[in-house]
């Protein structure tokens, strides 16, 4: 009985108390409540950051099991690569200035930034892939999606607005009128659903927070 309470019910009570506190503070911003809320904000950041080494553990474990299945030269290379990168960045941060040291910034800019900037452009090709493979105009909805997309694309590419100036206001209209209408409807419904999930969580009926053993 007591075991069930400690292992299952007490965390739910905790969720309820903390959640209600934050909500009450929003409507009745008493200084004491606001102080508690600010403290909670710090707590969440600290908890999340203290748990950071879990990531290292899970990454290492998956790498290790992968190596066990694939004990070839390439297997070893793939196994060791992340750890080499890890050490390299730790060394970079060992210089004076921690993560602001010029050494760390050099690594960060030339390795991480290059990867991020390239990765952000890759979806372009997958969008083209989707347009070619998956996107078939076989219903009025698909037509609407394509029209919305193309008209706004034309507005964004100067060549089209140069060749056909009316495309500019038309694209702008798509952005500011039907796009706003559809987006607003979706956002309102998502927000309502989120509130219901929130209330469900507060009263301890959200399965994902109850059942975890």
């Amino acid at each position, binding site marked *: 009985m007591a075991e069930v309470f400690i292992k299952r019910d007490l965390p739910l009570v905790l969720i309820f108390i903390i959640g209600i506190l934050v909500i009450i503070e929003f409507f009745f911003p008493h200084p004491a409540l606001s102080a508690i809320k600010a403290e909670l904000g710090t707590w969440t950041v600290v908890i999340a950051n203290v748990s950071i080494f879990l990531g290292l553990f899970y990454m290492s474990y998956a790498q290790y099991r992968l190596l066990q299945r694939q004990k070839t030269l390439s297997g070893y290379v793939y196994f060791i690569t992340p750890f080499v990168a890890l050490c390299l960045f730790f060394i970079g941060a060992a210089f004076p200035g921690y993560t602001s040291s010029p050494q760390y*910034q050099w690594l960060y800019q030339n390795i991480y930034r290059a990867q991020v900037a390239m990765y952000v452009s890759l979806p372009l090709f997958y969008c083209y*892939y989707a347009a070619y493979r998956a996107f078939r105009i076989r219903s009025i909805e698909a037509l609407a999606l394509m029209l919305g997309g193309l008209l706004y694309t034309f507005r964004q590419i100067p060549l089209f607005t140069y060749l056909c100036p009316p495309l500019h206001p038309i694209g702008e209209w798509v952005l500011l009128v039907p796009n706003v209408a559809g987006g607003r409807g979706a956002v309102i419904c998502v927000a309502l659903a989120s509130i219901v999930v929130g209330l469900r969580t507060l009263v301890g009926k959200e399965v994902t927070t109850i059942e975890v053993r």
Partner: protein
Amino acid sequence: MSMSEKTIWDKIAELDIRWIYLLTIILIVIPVVRPLGIPILVSEPVKDFYKTIDELPPGSVVAVSFRGSLGLLDEQEAQFIALWKILFQRDLKVIFYSPTADGEIILDMHLGKKVRPEDYGKKYGIDYVRLGYAPIGEPGEAAFALDIRSVFPTDYKGTPLDEIPMMKNINSWKDIDLLIFQYTSCTDVEIAIRQWVVPYNMPVLTMTLGCCGPMAAPYYPKMIKGFLSGSIAGAELEIIGGVPGPGAAMTDAKNLGIFGLIVSLILGNLAYWGRRLSKEGGE
């Protein structure tokens, strides 16, 4: 017609997608190497963006909340460089502060290198101030509006704000005439709305990525006076402000690259409808 024989539609449908990838890359490379120089029209939000700055009385104080991201710099660099030039050309007092670490790095890369304030006769501490980086989230933004010194007691070099001539009489939102809010996470526009527009009715301009344009649009022109989204807005600002920069070349390159999309769309649908209609016709 035997079953094994492939029609033209089948061939189109089974085309190796990598040809389209290659075509796209070539289409992007051409204008980068040899710019085309296609004219650009300036859109309403950009016109209003420029007008708001242009109409500020001399000596006005402009705060730039700069949450730049290095990985996404390509998209916004044209906007930044054009804006810095426009701000320095005018008689304005500019305060830069960075809620992201990357923002500070970008300012280091730009001010004094790509845009030199001295060329416009501007002096640090008198015409502009950099407060540096502090990981302030939304609560920090609210605190900044109420009391700048509570968040940034010193500038980026560690000089106390009271020792900087320009900052003498600048303490809170009351002393700021315009906020320029730059962000890369689309929903961050609401931070500006919640912390500056709603409580203080502060004139706010925003700068963001192209993909965040649709999210910023509903707030314009009531709550935000104008916004820049994407490198094309940067190119437009270069034109309307008369400050040439990298945006124009970039926009040029997009002119051709988009044809990859149009080709894929046409080929995909041609294959689909061709197959379908020829099947219906054959039966």
